[in-house]
């Protein structure tokens, strides 16, 4: 073993200096930052950064779409025929190669992949997905495939967040939550609507209301919108004309729009649900040509007089809102957009359904409004109002996100006077759509991919068992803690119960078994009060409205659990036992 060389005096001095500097840096760090940062607080700050990075990514994505559109379709308002047909076809081939060989997980919208990351893969989304989604979606949308940029933005945001979380070695629990935080940021930046983005992520990605993550989701959504507006301006997606709700009788007209929207949504949803698995099941070599074929057919639609259905179509939504098209053409555009989007989506072309849904809704709304005004000239509502409400209708009926649909319309229009028509039309559309197709489109896609993920709609429909469902009536005899044991013994003699509830003083509940009571009497403790012989620890109690799951946590503590009134904890509403709870669950599963 060789001896370490003796350090010269200079080296010792410099080491001492370094140690001093390190100590100083640590002290400074302690002053500057709270070194006892809990992960929760760090997570909130990280959410802001995720929002910033997602916002930057979405800005780049929008720039990429614009660039590819100019490069592929040309800058002129009316591209030549070969560009209209050739660009989506050629890009379809290229995208197919990219998706099959390099980015297999970027097919479709990206909402389900993000949801799967949250529930199945512990928040893990490969960073490659973000790159692939960015490239392929920008090319596809820019070339005129009938898809939108919002869902890809959502997935890009989620991928970035996931990658950042892994890099920072966050805990598994936090890493899992990062995906929806990034998703909200991406969607908010893409749609310039933070509230809708937060609600959409809660309704469609998280699939349940979770107060724990809400703060982070909101922070990331807002910071991403701020970044997006920094670069691209604060203008809303559409110039919504002046809209107003003047008379309650107009609600009938909006309800009719809700009915039409529901049927359109069901047709759209069923088309995707029908064709997607069939095309996926076709031989592998056909996968190379499917997006190209879709692009070719969409190009033909554009060439034959409806180029409006190509791309995201926001400009044309804007025009529809301002009476640029007759109602017949609006109806045709709505139908063609369903065809075009189905073609793009079922062939696995990366891109979102958010924008096409809004497009179909706006065109359908305008068409229904036009028909209604044609037959009922006294209706004074503008086409813009119908188009606006129509967007919400399709959103509620097709994506089955009713809350998002209402807030989306309000955020986009900045007009709260149409909230009543929006709610009426959306509710009608949502109810009819649910009755005609029980499974929402995102769940259909998830199941086709062999995954089972929770959904807010299922949760809403789920019947929650409560304590009152298993509760028995309060027993006739409730003992007082101040009563002597000998009196208690007399009073309980001849009763079949094995345990008796005791009302403690000044508050709380306890229980005494007949066995304990008899033993005390045999030991000659009859003069003692009931309260003095019972355990100090009080019995847990329940309220009638609590979920039955809460009772499960208590039933092992005691044979009987009191159920008390929320306004008066000394008032007994009933009791539950373990057998009662289990029997209720059993009865419920038999009924299902």
């Amino acid at each position, binding site marked *: 073993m060789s001896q370490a060389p003796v350090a010269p005096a200079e080296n010792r001095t410099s080491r001492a200096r370094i140690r001093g500097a390190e100590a100083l840096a640590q002290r400074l*760090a302690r002053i500057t*930052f709270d070194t006892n940062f809990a992960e929760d607080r760090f997570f909130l700050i*990280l959410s802001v950064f995720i929002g910033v990075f997602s916002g930057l990514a979405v800005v780049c994505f929008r720039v990429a779409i614009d660039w590819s559109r*100019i490069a592929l379709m040309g*800058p002129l308002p009316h591209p030549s025929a070969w560009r209209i047909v050739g660009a989506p076809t050629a890009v379809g081939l290229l995208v197919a190669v990219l998706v099959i060989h390099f980015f297999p997980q970027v097919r479709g919208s990206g909402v389900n992949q993000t949801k799967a990351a949250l529930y199945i893969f512990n928040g893990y989304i490969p960073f490659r997905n973000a790159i692939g989604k960015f490239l392929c979606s920008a090319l596809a949308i820019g070339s005129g495939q009938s898809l939108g940029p919002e869902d890809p933005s959502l997935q890009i945001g989620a991928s970035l967040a996931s990658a950042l979380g892994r890099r920072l*070695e966050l805990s598994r629990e936090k890493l899992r939550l990062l995906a929806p935080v990034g998703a909200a940021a991406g969607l908010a930046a893409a749609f310039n609507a933070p509230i809708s983005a937060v609600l959409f992520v809660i309704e469609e990605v998280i699939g349940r209301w979770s107060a724990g993550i809400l703060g982070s989701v909101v922070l990331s959504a807002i910071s991403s919108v701020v970044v997006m507006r920094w670069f*691209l301006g604060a203008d809303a997606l559409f110039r919504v004309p*002046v809209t107003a709700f003047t008379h309650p009788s107009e609600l009938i007209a909006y309800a009719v729009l809700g009915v039409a929207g529901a049927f359109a949504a069901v047709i759209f949803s069923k088309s995707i649900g029908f064709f997607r698995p069939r095309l996926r099941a076709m031989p592998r070599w056909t996968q190379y040509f499917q997006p190209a074929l879709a692009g070719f057919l969409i190009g033909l639609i554009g060439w034959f007089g409806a180029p409006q259905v190509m791309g995201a179509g926001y400009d044309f939504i804007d025009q529809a809102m301002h009476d*640029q098209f007759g109602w017949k053409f609006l109806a045709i555009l709505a139908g063609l957009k369903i065809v075009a989007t189905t073609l793009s989506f079922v062939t696995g072309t990366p891109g979102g359904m958010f924008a096409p849904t809004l497009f179909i809704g706006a065109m359908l709304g305008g068409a229904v409004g036009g028909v209604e005004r044609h037959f009922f000239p006294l209706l004074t509502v503008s086409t813009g109002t119908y188009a606006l409400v129509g967007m919400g209708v399709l959103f509620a009926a097709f994506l089955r996100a009713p809350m998002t649909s209402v807030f989306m319309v309000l955020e986009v229009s900045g007009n709260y006077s149409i909230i009543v028509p929006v709610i009426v039309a959306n509710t009608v559309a949502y109810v009819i759509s649910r009755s005609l197709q029980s499974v929402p489109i995102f769940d259909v896609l998830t199941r086709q991919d062999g995954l089972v993920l929770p959904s807010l709609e299922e949760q809403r429909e789920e019947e929650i068992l409560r304590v009152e469902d298993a509760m028995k009536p309060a027993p006739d005899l409730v003992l007082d803690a101040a009563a002597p044991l000998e009196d208690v013994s007399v009073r309980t003699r001849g009763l079949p119960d094995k345990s008796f509830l005791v009302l403690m003083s000044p508050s709380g509940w306890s229980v005494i078994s007949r066995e304990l009571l008899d033993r005390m009497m045999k030991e000659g403790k009859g003069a003692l009060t009931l309260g003095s012989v019972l355990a100090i620890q009080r019995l847990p109690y329940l309220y009638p409205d609590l979920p039955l799951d809460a009772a499960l946590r208590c039933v092992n503590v005691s044979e009987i659990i009191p159920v008390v009134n929320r306004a008066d904890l000394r008032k007994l509403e009933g009791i539950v036992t373990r057998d009662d709870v289990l029997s209720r669950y059993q009865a419920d599963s038999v009924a299902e």
Partner: protein
Amino acid sequence: MEYRIAMNPPVQTLARRTPLVLAVLVATAILGFSAVSHLVTRLKANEKRIAYHAFEAGMAAYRGNDPGRALDDFRAALSYDRDNPTYQLGLARALRDTGRLDESEAYLVHLWEGSPQDSTINLALARLATRRHSVDDAIRYYHNAIYGVWPDDPDRNRRQARFELIDFLLEQKTLPQAQAELIALTQVLPPLPSAHLAVATRFRQAQDLSNALVQYEIALKLDYRDASALDGAAETAFQLGRYTTAEKYLQKAVELYPKNDPLRQQLESATLVLATDPFLHHLSDAERNRRLVSAVTHAGERLKTCAHQLQIALPTPAPANEPPALSPAPSTGDLPDLWIRWNAIRRDLRQLNTASSADLPDMLMDLVTQIEQQTAQRCGQPTGTDLALLLISRDREAADQ
């Protein structure tokens, strides 16, 4: 598929490196901002270039009276440079010209909210209001345009805007407002005959003949050979009953344009009026009486001729020994009645030289007026002295009113 699951690091680890992590995140964000800023700047520059070309194409189409094609080009320009007010204004104008007034208004109101003092936008909104026949909105936006900020040549643009407003008000028959705008406009007119002529013409359309005459006279001072001004001044003076002035301008006009028959006829009428009117200020009593007698005589002749033309039998006059009818019975207005009254009052003519009847000249001219008006109505427009008497009658009535 195998996924890497994150480990659960102790919280202390995270806490220890938090400052470093935050510093790295901030640095990355700053770098990201710089890179994206560069990217967006390049894209915007490229899009602005494309937008400018599309706008130029749109303007060419718009100037070529093809607003439909201009619409497409302006839309393309705006799709690349959405906030450009010039492009928005171009699109709004094209929309207005293609009848899409609601959409045009949406664009213009949006622009107006951004810069309410911009006269170009206000002018476009005013023109939109004129398309909608909305007088209040038009006045408001034209005034905004007149008193707003113009990018170049503000005086000319302001005058032009006020002219447009006046034309719109005249079209809408809101004459008092038109007159008020015209009076305001006279304060800022350049010393050009054409400008004063344009204002004078509009004053006449607004039925403000006095101001019209003033403007014609200013135009004539600037260019005494301006035929339109001369014609307009003469015509206006004639309509105002200022026959001396009218005669002066008509003489100049006839000298300039001797072959112009309408001018010559108008000059003759003016001269005849001046030679016939018994109420001109400078006349002596004898001359006034002579003119009254002449007027009554001409009126009677005109009445007889008209009745003959209409084959109406006039009643025989009352005997000469009946007392004079200084207070004639109320007139029924038909020719025989007028004839009876004419015959009755003719006998009063001899009293013109006496001081006993101060009201007689007016009574005589009232009858002359009735006869000339009735015969003009029944037998057509008179000529010569009868025309002069008719004009005098009208002027008297106008003065009475």
